[in-house]
């Protein structure tokens, strides 16, 4: 979809945990927490606080009164998206909860833009969060249990990012978006989610280029949500075999967040991953004029621990949003 009145990104704010703060993008985040709890009594509460902090950060940065914001769109990885709902309880705006696994930020940006372009909202607050320890205990094993993670596994980011979209104002604009379809190439390994999501990302990029009659060189940066190193290589290869050369502009938020020395194996993942990389690093680079046109392709693995135990493969999804400076 191409927006006739492209919404403006009025503000962006990101909060991350200590490990992310030590990574190569550490300085691009608005705030780095000293520990994983930051004074909360549980990791779940901490994640919700983190999202609330990121949301409030964007509102404050834009200097817009809350009653000018018509909707809050947010999502996370936890059952019944509690982090978002609990953060929305404090933010107290009309709330639309989203679940797109790690693609949530891109999905929120696309939907928020539709609300504004369609004339249903003046300003929309979009956000997403994930927390390493809450995700770990829900999807995998207790954190103190001594286990080895396979080399293809990714590390869930502790972080929350938010963006405030507006109908009027100055700033980069969201010009188009492509909502992805669920693609399943029968990957079953939950420790190789990059491989499960890569075809979905490739399919969305293929359809986006087809719809807009564009190619990779039309973009300064194409960042997938969080495929990790394995998934990024696979998506590039699948697109190449489908006749699309991605060139040098194609990278992945999951590869950017951590340095290989931080022992994260294939890279980062989680709703918070693409959210903080976009709200932090990418927005900064757009503002200083380094990037003119960016595509963010949020990628989600739409499985649950139950579906995996029952032998189902992992369906993937990719949502693309394009930002023009």
């Amino acid at each position, binding site marked *: 979809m191409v927006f006739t009145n492209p919404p403006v990104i009025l503000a962006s704010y990101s909060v991350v945990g200590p490990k992310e703060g030590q990574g190569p993008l550490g300085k691009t985040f608005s705030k780095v927490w000293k520990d994983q709890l930051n004074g909360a009594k549980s990791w779940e509460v901490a994640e919700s606080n983190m999202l609330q902090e990121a949301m409030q950060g964007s509102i404050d940065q834009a200097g817009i009164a809350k009653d000018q914001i018509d909707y809050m769109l947010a999502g996370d990885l936890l059952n019944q998206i509690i982090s978002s709902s609990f953060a929305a309880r404090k933010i107290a705006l009309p709330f639309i909860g989203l679940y797109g696994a790690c693609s949530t930020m891109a999905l929120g940006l696309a939907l928020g833009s539709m609300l504004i372009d369609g004339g249903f909202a003046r300003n929309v607050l979009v956000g997403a969060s994930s927390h390493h320890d809450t995700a770990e205990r829900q999807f995998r094993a*207790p*954190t*103190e*249990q001594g*286990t*080895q993670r396979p*080399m293809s596994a990714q590390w869930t980011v502790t972080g929350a990012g938010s963006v405030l979209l507006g109908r009027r104002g100055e700033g980069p604009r969201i010009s188009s978006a492509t909502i992805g379809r669920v693609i399943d190439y029968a990957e079953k390994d939950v420790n190789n989610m990059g491989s499960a999501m890569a075809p979905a990302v490739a399919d969305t990029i293929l359809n986006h280029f087809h719809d807009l009659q564009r190619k990779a060189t039309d973009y300064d940066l194409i960042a997938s949500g969080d495929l990790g190193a*394995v998934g990024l290589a696979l998506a590039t290869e699948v697109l190449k*075999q489908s006749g699309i050369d991605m060139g040098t502009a194609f990278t992945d938020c999951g590869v950017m967040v951590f340095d290989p020395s931080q022992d994260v194996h294939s890279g980062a993942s989680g709703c918070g991953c693409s959210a903080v990389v976009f709200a932090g690093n990418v927005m900064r680079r757009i503002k200083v004029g380094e990037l003119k046109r960016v595509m963010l392709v949020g990628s989600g693995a739409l499985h649950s621990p139950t579906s995996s135990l029952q032998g189902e493969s992992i369906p993937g999804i990719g949502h693309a949003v394009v930002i023009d400076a």
Partner: protein
Amino acid sequence: MANQSLRKPTLAVSPENYKTLAQQYTPKPTIVKNVIRAFAVGGIICAIGQVIINFFVSVGLTSVEASTAATATMIFLGALLTGLGIYDEIGKFGGAGSIVPVTGFSNSIVSPAIEFKREGYVLGVGAKLFTVAGPVLVYGIATSIVVGIIYFLIH
């Protein structure tokens, strides 16, 4: 299950071809390194166990009593190191070498206990205590019953 009949444009790679491609791109587990580390870590843990057994024998326990006491000590050490947040680091390094000894069993019980304390003592710790060790106990005990019956029938 893979997708059926997608509207064009679609990727030129079929799910079958993708499977081979995914295997190519997925890094292989570092088996040799992992086996050596597991051997070393498992060996060290067992050597510590032996030292403790020897200690108990030297203070006057019989060898059967010393083994039991040493097992209890090792379980305590496993739990202590889990509580201090050290055992998961050993596990990451040593893999199966730290899972197979009794200290690994201790770790698999204590780690959910720490993890689920915030959900309360009954439905948190109580219900989740055996999430990791449960399958081992169920099939371990079931197998021992079967073996016991066979032993009884043979004799």
